[in-house]
């Protein structure tokens, strides 16, 4: 057993423990004070009720706050964190570029247009609009980058950047033109878990299971993607796995964005922290980064809720304000660079 896998035996349980702590705190802390003992009682009652195991008709105190408001919100933040961080790992492997962000293939750009249009014509349908436009945008970027049936990653990266500029021009045009009506788009673009429902949690759980599960399962292929075209000689169907990876990134980020808006930085910072700590092998990197992403987003959401009570700060602002300084600190500490940490 090498040193890094010994690390892993320490890190996975640590991250799992941190996950539980952050989830608990996420439910415990909020604008209404809930006693810690009530948190577990409330969750236990909710689970029992969902499984039809209880006959008590009177729910415990604070049940609605715990079960209907905070728990779905916290779980959604956790799942979106898993999704964004694992998509970030995949994007960095696909583009062989430490700066690659899961949104680079057009998802956030497209989702913003969708949200801006919805804010004018169908304000209650921002999520579905964002989802449809996000998927459409990935398809546009991907087809634009296609050369002779292949998609060179550099071209894909450039196509994503170019499309992003165009899409943000359209989005800002709508926002400026529609004025007050389109203002909600701003808030949405900064990301929020406000109003999360169990339906959101269920949907995101399925998406994460499929997308993140696929990326964790295919760790060998992600390692080989780092080698580029040469990995053909080691048995990788490069063009197939590029497509599948783009598909997984698109699935994860499109649903994440459509349920919670555009939350930046988690997809960049969680993979890099784990890469510095555990090395580049995706066998360890993908699951570890995903768990860290979950912890980070639950924590960021907690901060977003309590910092300027009773109002909320968009969670995207918190992730950037918390994540960037820490990331800069890590960069300085590991001067060799992030990919060769």
């Amino acid at each position: 057993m090498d040193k890094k896998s010994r690390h892993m035996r320490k890190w996975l349980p640590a991250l799992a423990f941190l996950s539980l702590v952050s989830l608990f705190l996420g439910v415990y802390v909020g604008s209404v004070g809930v006693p810690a003992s009530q948190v577990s009682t409330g969750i236990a009652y909710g689970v029992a009720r969902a499984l039809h195991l209880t006959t008590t008709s009177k729910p415990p105190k604070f049940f609605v706050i715990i079960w209907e408001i905070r728990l779905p919100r916290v779980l959604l933040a956790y799942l979106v964190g898993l999704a964004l961080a694992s998509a970030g790992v995949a994007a960095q492997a696909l583009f062989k570029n430490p700066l690659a962000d899961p949104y680079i293939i057009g998802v956030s750009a497209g989702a913003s247009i969708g949200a801006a249009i919805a804010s004018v014509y169908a304000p209650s349908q921002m999520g579905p609009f964002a989802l449809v436009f996000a998927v459409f945008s990935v398809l546009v970027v991907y087809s634009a980058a296609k050369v002779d049936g292949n998609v060179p990653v550099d071209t894909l990266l450039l196509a994503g950047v170019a499309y992003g500029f165009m899409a943000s021009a359209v989005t800002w045009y709508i926002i400026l033109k529609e004025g007050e009506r389109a203002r909600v788009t701003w808030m949405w673009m900064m990301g929020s878990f406000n109003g999360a429902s169990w339906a959101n949690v269920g949907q995101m759980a399925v998406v994460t299971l499929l997308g993140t599960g696929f990326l964790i399962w295919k760790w060998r292929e992600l390692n080989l993607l780092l080698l580029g075209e040469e990995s053909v000689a080691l048995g990788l169907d490069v063009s197939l796995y590029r497509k599948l990876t783009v598909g997984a990134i698109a699935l994860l980020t499109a649903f994440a964005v459509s349920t919670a808006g555009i939350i930046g930085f988690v997809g960049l910072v969680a993979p890099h922290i784990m890469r510095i700590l555990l090395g580049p092998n995706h066998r360890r990197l993908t699951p570890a980064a995903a768990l860290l992403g979950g912890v980070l987003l639950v924590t960021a959401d907690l901060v977003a809720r309590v910092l300027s009570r009773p109002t909320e700060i968009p969670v995207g602002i918190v992730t950037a304000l918390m994540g960037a300084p820490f990331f800069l600190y890590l960069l300085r500490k590991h001067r060799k660079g992030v990919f060769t940490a």
Partner: protein
Amino acid sequence: MRLDVDISFSYGEVEVLKDVEFSARKGELLAIIGPNGAGKSTLLKCMVGILKPRGHVTVDGADVLSLKPKERARMITYVPQSALPEFTFTIEEFVEMGTYATRGSVRRALETVGLWERKDEPVTNLSGGEYQLTLIARALAQDSRVVLLDEPTSHLDINHTLQVMELLRGMKEEHVTIPVLHDLNLALTYADRLILLHRGRKRWEGKPEELEPSVLEEVYGVKVKILEIEGERLLLAAP
């Protein structure tokens, strides 16, 4: 074990390889030589399927170009020109990357190149020569029938150069082994057979002892003398 190649390849309108045809067997070291831009690297990339040539590449009669990458890697693999490692995989993880690598084959490959003891070190710790040996080990751990190597000795000091060439000499007993070599003296010393590429065509093929200076003079545009010293052939070039 036998490899048969007959391919052509164009980048758009530009024909890079024209009807390059040859065969190779296990037990002989076949070196590909030729000036810069002759198409040597392109030839290897076509054979392993990184580029898509016209024609065929068969291993023991089976057309490998029509196989899926996974099955093709079983038949033929490739050691790229050594660039500095970009990622801090450990040596063992790095050699394990191939689809067919197993714990046993990784250990054997690393023992063959003498780096098993250092398997837990990051590849970024390695010198250029050691990194080249690790690249070869990664191909060996795949246990493919044919191993192609693109300039495996470029940038290496004389010690590592000879270490790599001795390694290839041992490999040829197990695999069809085909390196591209820039250093003509190494090719003359170690290869059992040579293929000289020039402007995308096979200009000459034969045993090292049959190579005439005039062919090299024509292809490289320099004056060439081949001396015999204590049974070894030594090539001298002058402008």
